C-alpha cells in the first residue's frame, strides 16, 4: 500500500517540498524556485525532485499563496455583485476608515467596480422579518446583465441575510439556474454572521478568487493524476486545518493565510513533541517577522484579518502578528538622529547590499554579514556565488556609522540591537495582549533568518530556551503533512441567554455537525479521532467586544444535545471571569454567534524519524571564522548542523550551518541536539 505523504508549500521565492515515507520512516526535503505567474510548474518540479512514481503517494497537501497573491496583486476575476436596494456601495464605503492615521493620503478601489454592483428590490429586517420579498425577475435581469458584462463569478449580498436567508436563498437559486459555472457565492452561505461589510467583503473576495484559485487547483490535480497519482489532494486553510480540494474551490477565501498557517501548525507539533507545549514562533523572512503564539499546544485563532486596506476576510485564521523587520529591512538614521529599521525593505530583489544587485542602503542581513554571522562564501538559496562583505560594510558605515559616530562594526551591532528590540517587542505584545507571560514560553525560530536572532530573543524577552526545528526552512511544507482536517461554521444568534430559542440553537448546531461529519466521511484519509469544538461569542448587553465561550456538547449517534440556558450562562461567567477578572452585577448576558469546528485528527508521523543517525560532533566540525558578538570578535567554530548526532552539545560561540539556515549560538548559550534532531538553545547556567 502506498504510504508516502507529501507537503508542498509555495512561498514568494521558494517552493518547499516535504516528503514522508511512513513505511521506511524516511523524510526528504526539496527546495525549488517558485514559478510565476503559474505556481503549478514549481509545484510539480519540486515533487518530481523527490518522488519519481506518483502512484506510491497517498496524500498531497498543499499550502498555497495563490489566493493571497491574487488578493494583494488584485489579480482575481472580473465579478459582479447583486445586492439589496440602497446598499450597492457598502463594499466601497468600508467601515469608514482610512489607510493611515496621519497624512490623509491613500485611496481604495474595491475588487468589484460600482457599475458591476447591481441592486434589486428586497429587504429583510434585523429580526428576520421580510419587509419586502425579493423580486426574482429583477435578480434574473441583474444576473444576465453581469453575464453580458463578462463577469466570471457573482456574489449575492443581502441585508440581514444572517437573520433570515430566505430572500437571499431564492435569489441564489435563480442565479445558479442560469449561471454557466459554479462560481456563485452567497453571503448567508459563506458567513451567516451579523455585520454587513465584513460579510459582504468576505463573500465578494471569495467570488473574486473562485475562478482563479479553482482553475489553479484543478490544473494541479489534473497534472498529479496524469502523473499516476491516485491519492487524496488537500489544501491547507488559514485556520491551520486542511480541506478537500473541491471545498477549496468552493471556499477559496479560506486559503488567504494558508502557507503561514501550516508553518505554525508544524511548529506547534514539533514543540509539543519535544516537550514544550507553550511556544512562540518567529518566522523571519525578507520583509517581515511573523510572530504566533501556541499555548498548551493550541494555536490561537483570530476571527478576521485585513489582507490589505479595505480587504477584510472574516473567517477563523491562525493569529499571526507581522512587523516590518525582516532580513531585507533597511536601517536608516532620521533627521533627528534616531536609528530606525524598516518599514522600507529591499526584499529579496534587489535584496541586501551584500547581494550586489543594486541596493545601496544597509539591511539587517548586511549587519549579520559584516559581523561574520552569515557565511559570505556560501549564501543561502544558492542563487549567488558570494556575498559582498565590503559593500555591506561601506553601506552601514555611510548610512548608520557616520551619522551616529560609530565604527562600522559598532553600527552593525546597533542595527541588530534595534531590530532585535523590535522583534522582542512584537513577541511581548502578542503574549501580553492574550494575557500570557512570555517568560513561560519557548521560542521557535523558523524561516531562513530567524535562527540568527535566537540569543537576542532569549535575552530581550527573557524566554527560557529556544527550539530550532531540524528543517526550519521547510516548516510550512512539513505542517501540510501534519495538519488535521477541519471545517469551521458560524451562525449569528443575537439573543439574551434567558430568551434563547433552544430549538433553533439545536437546529443550527446539528446542521453544523452534520455538514462537518459529511465532509470527514467524504475524505479518503482515515482519522484517529473526530472532535467537535463549540464556542459562543458572548458579551453583556451594551458591551461591544465579545468573549469566546467554550461550551460542552454531547454527540450520540450523530445527534447533538445542545447546552442548556443554565449551562451557557455558567460557561459565560467562567470565560468572562478568566478574561476580565470579575463579573458584572446585574449584567444581561447575550449570545452573539455560534461557532462550531469539526475536526478529523489525522495520524501523526513520528518525528524521531527525522533524527540524525550516527555522526559525531568532531566530524561535524567544518572550521572556524571570526564572528562579532557584543563588543568583540570571537574565533567561532562552525558546524555542519545536519551532521551533529543526537545528544551533541555545542557551547557558544558557535555557528551551526545547514543549506537553508544559519543557527547562531551566542556566547553564554549552549546548543543541544534532542532525540528528534531539534536544536535546543538555552543559557549555560540554566543547565
Amino acid at each position: 500500500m502506498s504510504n508516502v505523504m507529501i507537503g508542498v508549500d509555495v512561498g514568494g521565492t521558494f517552493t518547499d517540498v516535504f516528503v514522508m515515507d511512513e513505511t521506511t520512516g524516511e523524510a526528504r526535503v526539496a527546495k525549488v524556485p517558485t514559478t510565476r505567474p503559474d505556481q503549478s510548474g514549481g509545484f510539480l518540479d519540486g515533487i518530481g525532485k523527490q518522488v519519481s512514481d506518483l502512484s506510491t503517494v497517498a496524500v498531497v497537501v498543499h499550502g498555497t499563496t495563490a489566493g493571497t497573491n491574487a488578493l494583494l496583486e488584485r489579480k482575481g476575476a472580473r465579478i459582479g455583485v447583486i445586492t439589496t436596494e440602497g446598499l450597492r456601495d457598502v463594499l466601497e464605503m468600508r467601515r469608514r476608515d482610512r489607510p493611515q492615521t496621519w497624512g490623509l493620503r491613500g485611496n481604495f478601489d474595491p475588487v468589484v467596480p460600482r457599475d458591476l454592483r447591481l441592486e434589486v428590490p428586497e429587504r429583510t429586517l434585523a429580526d428576520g422579518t421580510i419587509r419586502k420579498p425579493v423580486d426574482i425577475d429583477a435578480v434574473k435581469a441583474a444576473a444576465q446583465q453581469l453575464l453580458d458584462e463578462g463577469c466570471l463569478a457573482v456574489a449575492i449580498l443581502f441585508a440581514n441575510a444572517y437573520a433570515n436567508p430566505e430572500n437571499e436563498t431564492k435569489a441564489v437559486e435563480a442565479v445558479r439556474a442560469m449561471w454557466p459555472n459554479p462560481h456563485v457565492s452567497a453571503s448567508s452561505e459563506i458567513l451567516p454572521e451579523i455585520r454587513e461589510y465584513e460579510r459582504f467583503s468576505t463573500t465578494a473576495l471569495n467570488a473574486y478568487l473562485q475562478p482563479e484559485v479553482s482553475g489553479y487547483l484543478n490544473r494541479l490535480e489534473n497534472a498529479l493524476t496524469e502523473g499516476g497519482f491516485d491519492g487524496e489532494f488537500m489544501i491547507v486553510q488559514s485556520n491551520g486545518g486542511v480541506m478537500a480540494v473541491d471545498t477549496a474551490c468552493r471556499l477559496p477565501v479560506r486559503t488567504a493565510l494558508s502557507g503561514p498557517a501550516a508553518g505554525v501548525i508544524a511548529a506547534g507539533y514539533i514543540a509539543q513533541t519535544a516537550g514544550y507545549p507553550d511556544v512562540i514562533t518567529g518566522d523571519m523572512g525578507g520583509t517581515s517577522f511573523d510572530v504566533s503564539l501556541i499555548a498548551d499546544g493550541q494555536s490561537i485563532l483570530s476571527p478576521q484579518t485585513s489582507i490589505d486596506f479595505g480587504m477584510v476576510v472574516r473567517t477563523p485564521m491562525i493569529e499571526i502578528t507581522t512587523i516590518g523587520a525582516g532580513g531585507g529591512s533597511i536601517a536608516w538614521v532620521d533627521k533627528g538622529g534616531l536609528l530606525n529599521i524598516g518599514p522600507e525593505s529591499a526584499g529579496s530583489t534587489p535584496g541586501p547590499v551584500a547581494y550586489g544587485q543594486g541596493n545601496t542602503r544597509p539591511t539587517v542581513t548586511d549587519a549579520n554579514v559584516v559581523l561574520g554571522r552569515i557565511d559570505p562564501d556560501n549564501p543561502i538559496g544558492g542563487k549567488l556565488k558570494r556575498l559582498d562583505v565590503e559593500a555591506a560594510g561601506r553601506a552601514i558605515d555611510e548610512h548608520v556609522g557616520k551619522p551616529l559616530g560609530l565604527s562600522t562594526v559598532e553600527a552593525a551591532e546597533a542595527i541588530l540591537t534595534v531590530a532585535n528590540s523590535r522583534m522582542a517587542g512584537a513577541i511581548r505584545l502578542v503574549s501580553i495582549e492574550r494575557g500570557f507571560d512570555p517568560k513561560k514560553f519557548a521560542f521557535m525560530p523558523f524561516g531562513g533568518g530567524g535562527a540568527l536572532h535566537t540569543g537576542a530573543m532569549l535575552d530581550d524577552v527573557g524566554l527560557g530556551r529556544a527550539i530550532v526545528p531540524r528543517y526550519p526552512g521547510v516548516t510550512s511544507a512539513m505542517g501540510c503533512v501534519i495538519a488535521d482536517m477541519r471545517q469551521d461554521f458560524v451562525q449569528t444568534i443575537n439573543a439574551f441567554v434567558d430568551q434563547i430559542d433552544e430549538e433553533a440553537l439545536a437546529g443550527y448546531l446539528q446542521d453544523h455537525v452534520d455538514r462537518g461529519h459529511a465532509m470527514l466521511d467524504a475524505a479518503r484519509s482515515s482519522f484517529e479521532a473526530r472532535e467537535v469544538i463549540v464556542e459562543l461569542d458572548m458579551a453583556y448587553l451594551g458591551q461591544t467586544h465579545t468573549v469566546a465561550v467554550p461550551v460542552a456538547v454531547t454527540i450520540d449517534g450523530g445527534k447533538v444535545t445542545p447546552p442548556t440556558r443554565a449551562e451557557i450562562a455558567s460557561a459565560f461567567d467562567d470565560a468572562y471571569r478568566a478574561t476580565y477578572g470579575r463579573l458584572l452585577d446585574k449584567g444581561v448576558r447575550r449570545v452573539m454567534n455560534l461557532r462550531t469546528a469539526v475536526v478529523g485528527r489525522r495520524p501523526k508521523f513520528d518525528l524521531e524519524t527525522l533524527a540524525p543517525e550516527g555522526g559525531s560532533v568532531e566530524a561535524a566540525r567544518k572550521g572556524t571564522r571570526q564572528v562579532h558578538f557584543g563588543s568583540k570578535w570571537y574565533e567561532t567554530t562552525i558546524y555542519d548542523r545536519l551532521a551533529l548526532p543526537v545528544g551533541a552539545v555545542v557551547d557558544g560561540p558557535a555557528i551551526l550551518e545547514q543549506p537553508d539556515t544559519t543557527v547562531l549560538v551566542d556566547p553564554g548559550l549552549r546548543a543541544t541536539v534532542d532525540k528528534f534532531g531539534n536544536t535546543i538553545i538555552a543559557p549555560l547556567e540554566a543547565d
Partner: protein
Amino acid sequence: MSEIDPITLAVLSGRMEQIADEMDATLFRAAFNPIIAEAHDASHGLYHAASGDTLVQGKSGLPIFVGVMSFAVKAVIDKAAADGDLADGDIFIFNDAHIGGTHLSDMRLVRPYFRDGELFCYLASVGHWHDLGGAVPGNYNPAATDAFAEAFILPPVRLARAGVVNQDIIDILMRNTRLPQSAQGDLNGQLGALDLGVKRMDELLDEYGAETVKAALDALGGRAETLMRSELNALPDGRWEAVDFLDNDGVTDEPLPIKVALEIKGDRMVLDFEGTAPRCAGPVNIAYPTAVATAYVAIKHIFPALPANAGVMRPIDVKIPEGSLLSAEFPAPVGGYTETILRMIDVIFSAMAQAAPDMVVGNAYGTINALSIAGRRKNGQPWVMFSFYGGGHGGTPEGDGLNHGNAPISTATIPPMEILESAYPVMFRQWALRPDSAGAGAQRGGLGAVYEIEVLEENGAEAFLFGERGRFAPQGVAGGEASVTNHFSYQQDDGWHEPPMASKMRGISLKQGQAVRLETPGGGGYGPSEGRDPAKVARDVALGFLSPEKATELYGAAWKEVKA
C-alpha cells in the same frame, strides 16, 4: 543630565511607545461603550513631570488627544502644586473641558508615577464616555448656551489618594449619567490601563535605571524638535492666509469666520488665528487647549513621520486671539468643538497649500455629523441611537481622495448598519455614496455619503443633529475646487423639510415610517480641473460617481469623446 547612547535611545523609544500602546489595548478590550471599544475615542501616554509635555503617546488613540492631553496633565500639576500633597498612588479625574480641552464627554484620569519616592512622570488616560447627564442624551446639545446645559462638570479631583479609591467620587459620577453601567465599565477600563502603565514603567526602570530612561525622554524631545526644525528649514519663507466659515453657532444664524495666517521664517513657524470670530452663544466655541492641540493635529497630518512628542511644537508659535471662539472661557458651551477644530485644520491646510502644495491635500468633508435618534419602545424602554457619519477626503498630489473616510481628528470607524438595525428600531433605506459630491480637480475629492434612516417604532422618535458645512463647502487646494455642502432633511406628514439652521437641529419628531436623510460632503479637489484626464472623467460617469450634466459642467465635454 546624562548623555545617552544612540542604540539605547532607539530601543527605549520603542519600549516606551509600546507601553502607551498596551495601555490603549487594555482600555479598548475592557470598555463597554462602543465609542471607546470600536471607535477608539480614547488615548494614553507618558507626560513630563514638571511641564506636563507629551513624552510618548499610544499609536491607536484619537489624533486630537495627542496635543490636548498635556493640558490635562498640566491642570493636575497645578492642582497638586496648590494643594501641596502629591503622593504615590494618587489618581486625579476630571472632564472639565475648559481646563483639559476637547469636550465634557472626555473623562481624563491622570496618575503621577513615582520612582524611589520621587515623581518621575505622569501617566494619563482619556476616554469618551457615553453619557454624562446634561440636557441631551449623549451630550451633543446643539442649543446649549452654557456648559451646564451640556453635561455634568467635574473639575480635577482625587479619585484615589495614596492608593485608596474614594468611592464618594464614583457615587457622584454614577448618579450623573444616564448609563451608569457603561460609565462603570469605562472607568474600570481606564483604571486598568493606568495600572498596567505603572507596572510596565516599573519593569522598564528596573531594567534600564531611572537615569537612563530620563535621559532618553529628554533626548527624544530634543530630537523631535530637531526633526521639526529641519522640516521647516526646507520650506520657503513667507506668510500665507486662509479663511473659512462655520455655518452658525446653532443659536444665531450667522456665519463665523475662522482665519489663519501661516508664517514660515527659517526653522520657525507661526500660526496666527487673528481675525477669527469672537466667542459665540452656541456650542461651537472651543477652549484654548483644544485650539493649540488642533494646530498640532494639522502639523502631524502635514508631517506624518514626526513623533507624537511635544518637542515637535517647540519651533511653532500658535497665536490664539483672546476673546475669540478659539479661547472661550468657562462656562461657554464647547460641545460642538469637533466642528470648529475641523475648520481650523481646513484653513491651516489651505494656507500651507500656498507655501508647499505637495505637502497637503484638499479639505476633507469637515463635519462630524453627530446624529442621534431617540425614543421609547412600546414597553417604555428608552433607546438612543447615536453615531457620527462619514464623508469624502480631499484630492491628493498622488490621486483622487478617499471615498467615505473618517474625520482627520479621529480614527473612528462607523458601526455596522446591521448592528444598528438590530439594536434600535430603525431601518436604513440607503447607505450609499453620494454622486456629484466630490470637489473637482486634476485629482478630485473623494465622495461623501447618503444615509436615509426610517423609524420603525410605533411610538415614533425624536432626532437631533449636530453638523456643519451646510452653507460653506469644503475647499480645494492648489487650484482644485470646492465640493458640495452637507445636506440634512427630514420627513413629516407634508413631505420633506430642512432645518432652519442648516446642519443643526434639535428634537424633530418623527412618526413610524418617516425618515431622516443625511447627505454628506465629498472632499475638495487637488489641482485645476482642466488638468484632469478626460478618461478619468468618463470613468467617473460610467461608475455613476458623476452625472453626465455635472461632468460637462465641471470638466467640459471632452470626456464624451474618450473611452472610460
